[in-house]
């Protein structure tokens, strides 16, 4: 009897707690995410729909957005592959210095991206020994697209590794071992047994790195050369519009980047929902 009587009060308390938590989250996201984002949109459309279209349809803006999309996609593809590989090595393969490598992974987040750019130029610039060698073979790394992709890769390295790695730790290694015992090659065992469970994490990590790369400025402005319609990315174009006193054009191009990031998240999350346990989806 007493147990039953206390139950509604209990539920009510949990309900109140949930409501509190939920309103805090909404308030926090509203103040720190939604408000700034809507300010971007407001400024972007401050000259009307026509002004917005004019800002994003200049040949410079189209080329910059296209370049940003291409380099970010290239980076995301490489990152998905190498990030998974690194995560697998860290989680499953015992090699000397593993702890050290594991600690190194997060460092790109700690370095100002500006320094990343300068470092890459010193390493791969046309005057460096790497750069000279590539130059002799007709490949230009810095002040060209490969340099941009390289900078993006460095800046976003931890995303895929750090989303895939914990899933590998959680996963029972026995399944993979069983497959190998049953005659599968280690690669086949990885592909058929381990990889399916990793897909959601790989997708999330790749998506994070892609979104992050769209807006990357500090390193790209140093390594790209910033020639309009050739090596000028959207983030650098936006910076130029702000510096030239055209905040509405800057906001308009930013809004396009936001839309691309948002749409890719929605698309991938939808795609992913089937593959995830319900409570994670």
């Amino acid at each position, binding site marked *: 009897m007493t147990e039953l009587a206390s139950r509604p009060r209990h539920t009510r308390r949990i309900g109140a707690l949930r409501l509190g938590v939920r309103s805090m989250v909404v308030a926090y996201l509203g103040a720190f995410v939604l408000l700034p984002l809507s300010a971007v949109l407001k400024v972007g459309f401050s000259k009307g729909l026509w002004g917005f279209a004019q800002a994003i349809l200049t040949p410079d803006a189209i080329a910059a957005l296209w370049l940003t999309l291409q380099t970010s996609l290239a980076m995301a593809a490489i990152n998905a592959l190498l990030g998974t590989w690194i995560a697998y090595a860290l989680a499953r393969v015992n090699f000397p210095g593993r702890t050290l490598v594991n600690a190194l992974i997060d460092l790109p987040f700690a370095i100002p991206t500006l*320094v990343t750019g*300068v470092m890459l*130029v010193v390493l791969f610039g046309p*005057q460096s020994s790497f750069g000279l060698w590539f130059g002799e073979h007709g490949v230009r790394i810095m002040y060209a697209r490969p340099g941009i992709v390289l900078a993006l890769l460095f800046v976003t390295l931890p995303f895929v590794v750090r989303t895939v790695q914990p899933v590998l730790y959680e996963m029972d290694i026995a399944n993979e071992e069983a497959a190998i015992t049953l005659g599968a090659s280690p690669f086949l065992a990885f592909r058929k047994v381990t990889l399916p469970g990793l897909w959601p994490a790989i997708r999330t990590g790749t998506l994070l790195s892609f979104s992050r790369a769209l807006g990357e400025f500090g390193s790209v402005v140093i390594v790209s050369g910033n020639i309009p*319609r*050739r090596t000028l990315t959207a983030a650098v174009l936006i910076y*130029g519009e702000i510096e030239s*006193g055209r905040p509405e054009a800057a906001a308009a191009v930013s809004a396009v980047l936001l839309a691309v990031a948002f749409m890719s998240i929605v698309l991938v999350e939808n795609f992913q929902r089937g593959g995830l346990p319900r409570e994670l989806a």
Partner: protein
Amino acid sequence: MCVIAAARAQIFLLLVTVGCAHADRATKRPAEVLTISAFSVVREAYDGALLPAFSHWYEKRTGRPVRVEASYGASGSQSRAVVEGFEADVVVLSMPDDVDRLRRAGLITHDYEAAPYHGLVSHSIVAFAVRPGNPKGIHDWVDLTRSDVEVLTANPSTSGGAIWNVAALYGAAQREPAKTQFGDDPSEALARVLSRVEIMDRSGRDSVQTFERGMGDVVVTYENEIVVGQRAGRQYVQVTPHSTLRIDNPAALVDVYADEHGRRELAELFLQYLRSPAAQRIFARSGLRPADPDIAAETDVARPPVADLFTMDDLGGFSKLKEKLLSPQGAYSRALEKVVARR
């Protein structure tokens, strides 16, 4: 090297340096405070010599200690920050247009150009830096169009300084000998030089640093950047084109904020000090050209002479030039179109 590059870079809107904030605590009287917002190039000159000298001069003159809080950054960013509410009493900027922005925003209500030297406190010129011994034989603007020459200049849309570069070329192309060399259309001169540009850095200083890392054969920048680099041990050589543009650095009192803070008298004395022979000599030592003609005459001996120096007024003033050169239909955009079309 990375650290130095990062520290020198100008991405931060406001690098507020509160100089000697605690040193004055010990004195009996609380120090008066003056807030200035300045373009980053003058940082060394100001923090190293000018501000301490001013404090000394002011205290001797009025018996009151003073503390100057200085914020440095790219001229355009500094000007915009003041419009957005960074309450500087005095601005020292690299382009008259950046001061005009404050006038348009209603923050400067007086005619700052009525001050001595038309409101300017220092000058520089647009010049080239080339490799030691000038191996490519670069002497004038027309040499920047050669197919064996790679040119560095900052991006005019991100760097106020680069606007001076483009304006210098645009102006020179309308004067002899460049006029004959380039033909009648100054946008053609821009297109031919721009087609030799592979790297357009964000700021003038970044551009010089890229040159220091070995890229390019020539960098178009301000003379004072070259002087500062040479003084730091860099091996490049300055080449002054036959015709070049005088760069103007204005300083002005921001009426609204100075009055709000009750610092008008102090701010006026600071501006007066900037035009004093002592301060003008400090500018000269830091690579700038003094606004005071007498001090300029005495310090310019060490500077390469300019055969044909023209000013923004010769180009019709900044606002007119902005329309003709930098508007979407301007000569610079037309030149970029040509470069893309010929690529």
